[in-house]
């Protein structure tokens, strides 16, 4: 029975998650309630089993953190070698996704650095624009189109410069 004492030993995988997995594995099969409850508890047992074994392997290897290698060896020594291939696939997928995320975030960082540069350049551009307004209109517009500031602004009006309102 589920306890509300918050004891560590009462930690289990949520029943709903287990039910879903059982349903996907045995579609259209009725499952007795006490059988479901048992599967939930078996999961916890399994996790403890793997953790303990992996932990032992980890201790022997003089490392402080349980690594994927330790878990794989644990699976092997406990008779779950058949899981290893599929489990490794997930690891590969996680690594691929993690790599993509790192690339994506470093691209963002690369945009950030020139941002300061862009700001500096923008200041330069407006300074140049001031110089350009003294030219005749068509020439001025053509010159203005050569400078594309980060925030596109309408072409300078006839009266004078655009004031940088940032």
């Amino acid at each position, binding site marked *: 029975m589920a306890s509300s004492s918050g004891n560590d030993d009462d930690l289990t995988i949520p029943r709903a998650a287990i039910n879903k997995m059982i349903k996907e*594995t*045995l579609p259209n099969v009725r499952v007795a309630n006490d059988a479901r409850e048992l*599967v939930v508890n078996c999961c916890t047992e399994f996790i403890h089993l793997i*953790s303990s074994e992996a932990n032992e392997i980890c201790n022997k290897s003089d490392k*402080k953190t*349980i690594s994927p290698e330790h878990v794989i060896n644990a699976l092997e020594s406990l008779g779950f070698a058949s899981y290893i291939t599929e489990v490794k*696939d997930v690891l590969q997928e*996680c690594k691929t996704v993690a790599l993509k995320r790192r690339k994506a975030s470093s691209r963002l960082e690369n945009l950030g650095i020139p941002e300061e540069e862009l700001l500096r350049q923008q200041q330069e551009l407006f300074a140049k624009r001031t110089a350009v307004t003294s030219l005749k209109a068509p020439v001025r517009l053509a010159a203005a189109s050569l400078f594309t500031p980060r925030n596109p602004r309408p072409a300078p009006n006839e009266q004078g410069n655009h004031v940088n309102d940032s």
Partner: protein
Amino acid sequence: NANKIKRTPDAKKSISLPVSRVRLIMKSSPDVSSINQDALFLTTKATELFVQHLALSSFNNGSGKDSNTLEYSDLAKTTEENETFHFLTDILPKKILARDYLKTLEQMQEEEEEADL
């Protein structure tokens, strides 16, 4: 809610059990200190495979197959017969005893009633 089944964009399309909960359970094991994140994913996936394995094995080898039902007794049977599942023995007997005891009780009551007639 961190304990709900997560379908986070970063990856775990192939993992449906909540990784955070698996981590909590692992850490409640005696002496377990730190776990590498990838090791955690591996364990979670292994647990999923275990559930599938246990359910399939129990159903295919059990008597419930005829009635298209997975019964407690099917699980108990597969645990006994399959060496890799022997680690589960400890969490089984009590329940079996209770069930058997209740059955015995019922039988005893029926016998008493019959005797009274």
